[in-house]
């Protein structure tokens, strides 16, 4: 478990959300603001976890000139696609069919690996075997855990459109009555109830065109809900026909209640009042499975328990497997293949100014971006490494109470040179305070121009070479000993400075003067990651940019104005994780 040094940046969006609302407080807001400036950033605070990001995860808004983190951007969906077949799904289909792939993309219910369709027919042999097409019944196979849909008794007739075929078969091969078929059946029945056939025995015969649905059928949650809903809607319509509420169900303007109300408006108020007082018909409850009634029989519980006793724990589905299923699956043989959830391509927008920060291409195959404003192209990146290169193969821990020096390299991505100011509190926050000293808090980093451009500007390659050698000579003077106020090394668009760290001793029990205030208050055992030295650094970057304006129809006076350089600055906190302190 090796430790790699990291640099995390804090997004300023969290500062504005700090709970500083104290009702009835008489302190003026000016004092609160200065309090925020003085307050140092504590990377160990629980809130800090949500505001720190590596630089690659941050975007930059050009209008607001601010960093934007994944938490303070608004996402908008550009395209929906299936992650397995990479087929684009139009958003209208997503709204109607749901957010899963409706083709043949399924995941194994046991191990979440992708399933492939294969024929159950024996492979052809002999001459011409490669040209023979197989047409046997098809099954879904998992190549990772060798599960097959045969284990739940499901086979398919066609190799395509598995989603539709799967929705019609239960585990075990029996057909499922789909919601659409149930609705059609219900409509058939209601349409013919006016002329219901009733023979002499008083038994209602089956109407032609309807299905033979079992009144004691075991319904799953979805069909039970739709049956109950339809039943209650019909009950409401039947029980209160004369009410002014003509809005029950989907009858619209043609409902008897609405009609009577409108007629009442024309004929006068007295008639409508009388009608409103008519007794409401009694509503009954559902009587059988057709109407949505499900009676739990004690026998069903026994069946499950007996199965459990005979098959054992191995046959039950695990919590993760059950979570993926849409119905309550107790046993492994109840599990059904899971359709892949659709994935999206999203564009990100700044929350305050609604400027688009990142916009991918809408085609699934292209990986380019139409717009991509990443923070890497706007703020200097920071990388850390120890000044003395560590011996290979050995776990490098920081020895407590031994001053260690680290090299911080700032790389400038902008086309203008920037002035960087860094500051850090003298000791790191937390229970074990390490002392930090920055040897050079102010320096300038060159612009990120190409080497050619710089050579052309200087007027010949010799000039730049000489300059490089000069700076190297300067740097080598300080190479053995890091001096305060001097940078360590400089390159075309980067600068490295030295930071000295005195790691704290991790002893909890010790002489009182050695322990920090926080340690005195809380002397529990060493918690996770408390031995990591995290240095909060406040970085302020200043640069002069050309004030860029859109309209360039320039009169000479106007163009001169545009050449005036605008001074810009950006300030943010970052956290440097330099290393772990050794515990002895």
């Amino acid at each position, binding site marked *: 478990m090796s430790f790699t040094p990291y640099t995390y940046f804090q997004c300023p969006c969290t500062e504005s959300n700090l709970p500083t609302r104290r009702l009835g407080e008489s302190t003026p807001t000016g004092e609160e603001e200065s309090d925020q400036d003085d307050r140092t950033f504590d990377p160990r605070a629980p809130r800090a976890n949500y505001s720190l990001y590596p630089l*690659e995860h941050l*975007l930059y808004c050009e209008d607001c000139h601010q960093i934007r983190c994944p938490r303070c951007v608004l996402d908008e969906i550009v395209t929906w696609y299936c*992650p*397995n077949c990479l087929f684009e799904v139009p958003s209208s289909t997503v709204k109607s069919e749901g957010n899963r792939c409706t083709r043949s993309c399924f995941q194994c219910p046991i*191990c979440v690996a*992708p399933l492939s369709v294969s024929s159950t027919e024996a492979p052809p042999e002999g001459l011409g075997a490669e040209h023979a097409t197989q047409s046997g019944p098809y099954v879904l196979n998992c*190549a*990772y855990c060798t599960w097959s849909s045969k284990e739940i008794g499901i086979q398919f007739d066609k190799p395509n459109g598995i989603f539709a075929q799967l929705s019609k078969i239960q585990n075990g091969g029996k057909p499922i009555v789909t919601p659409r078929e149930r609705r059609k059946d219900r409509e058939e029945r209601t349409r013919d109830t006016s002329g219901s056939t009733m023979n002499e025995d008083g038994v209602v015969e089956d109407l032609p065109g309807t299905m033979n649905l079992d009144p004691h059928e075991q319904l799953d949650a979805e069909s039970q809900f739709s049956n109950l809903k339809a039943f209650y809607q019909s009950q409401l319509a039947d029980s209160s026909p004369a009410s002014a509420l003509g809005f029950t169900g989907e009858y619209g303007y043609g409902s008897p209640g609405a009609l009577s109300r409108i007629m009442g408006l024309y004929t006068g108020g007295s008639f409508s009042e009388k009608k409103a007082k008519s007794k409401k018909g009694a509503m009954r409850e559902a009587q059988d499975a057709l109407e949505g009634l499900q009676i739990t029989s004690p026998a069903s519980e026994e069946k499950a328990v007996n199965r459990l006793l005979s098959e054992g724990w191995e046959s039950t589905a695990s919590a993760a497997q059950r979570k993926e299923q849409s119905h309550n699956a107790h046993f492994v043989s109840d599990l059904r293949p899971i359709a892949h959830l659709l994935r999206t391509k999203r564009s990100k927008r700044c929350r305050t100014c609604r400027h688009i920060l990142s916009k991918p291409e809408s085609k699934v195959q292209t990986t380019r971006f139409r717009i991509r404003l990443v*923070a890497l192209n706007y703020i200097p990146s920071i990388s850390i490494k120890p000044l003395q290169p560590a011996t290979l193969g050995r776990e490098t821990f920081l020895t407590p109470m031994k001053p260690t020096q680290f090299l911080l390299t700032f790389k400038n991505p902008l086309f203008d040179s920037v002035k960087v100011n860094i500051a850090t509190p003298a000791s790191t926050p937390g229970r074990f305070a390490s002392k930090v000293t920055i040897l050079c808090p102010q320096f300038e980093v060159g612009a990120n121009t190409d080497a050619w451009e710089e050579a052309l500007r200087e007027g010949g390659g010799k000039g730049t070479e000489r300059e490089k050698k000069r700076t190297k000579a300067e740097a080598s003077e300080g190479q053995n000993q890091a001096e305060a106020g001097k940078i360590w090394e400089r390159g075309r668009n980067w600068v490295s400075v030295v930071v000295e760290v005195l790691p704290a001793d991790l002893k909890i029990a010790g002489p009182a003067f050695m322990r920090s205030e926080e340690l005195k208050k809380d002397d529990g055992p060493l918690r996770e990651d408390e031995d990591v030295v995290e240095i909060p650094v406040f970085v302020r970057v200043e640069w002069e940019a050309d004030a860029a304006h859109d309209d360039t129809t320039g009169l000479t006076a106007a163009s001169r104005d545009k050449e005036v350089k605008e001074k810009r600055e950006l300030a943010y906190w970052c956290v440097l994780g330099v290393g772990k302190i050794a515990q002895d």
Partner: protein
Amino acid sequence: MSKKVAKGEYIETDTGNKVSRRSQIIGTTNIILGGKTVIQAEVIIRGDLLRTLSSSTSDKSSGNPVAVAIGRYCFFSRGCELRPPGKLYRGSFSHYPLKIADHVFVGPSSIIEAALIGSHVSIGSNCVIGKFAIIKDYVRILDGTVVPPNMVIPSFSVVGGRPGRVVGEVAEGEVDGFDLREVYRRVGNS
């Protein structure tokens, strides 16, 4: 000062490929390297696992059949293995070509049996990529992942676990980090 031609770790070809002397590359006539690719020590590339052509289609084949095709600026770390995947198709077992695009980094001791790997992919150490997996562009596969056979990994995914699942997305700022040109330049002493 005369330059001694020392026997270094890598052999550099004219297209800029740096191949270690201690790598095991079998069937070199069936392997295509795009250029500026680094192959470290103990890497095994199975160019001998070819597609078994039946007699009817032999007229179309021109030149050498390709078993492994690799793009530019790829990096194969120590001990990894590239194997073209094979399956039983219509009665006969045959291997299919393994195609790898540009800027692909493969970590040490990983086994690759995929069908297609897109560009700018970073595969961690000790991974197993199952047969006929298709990995699209800009994917990061974490250390120790086992990607199941036939899995399709869409672009900009972070994949981990056994079996491999998509556990995250690659941020827009990380896109430039997949570029392996600097890594190629750092590999020294031929």
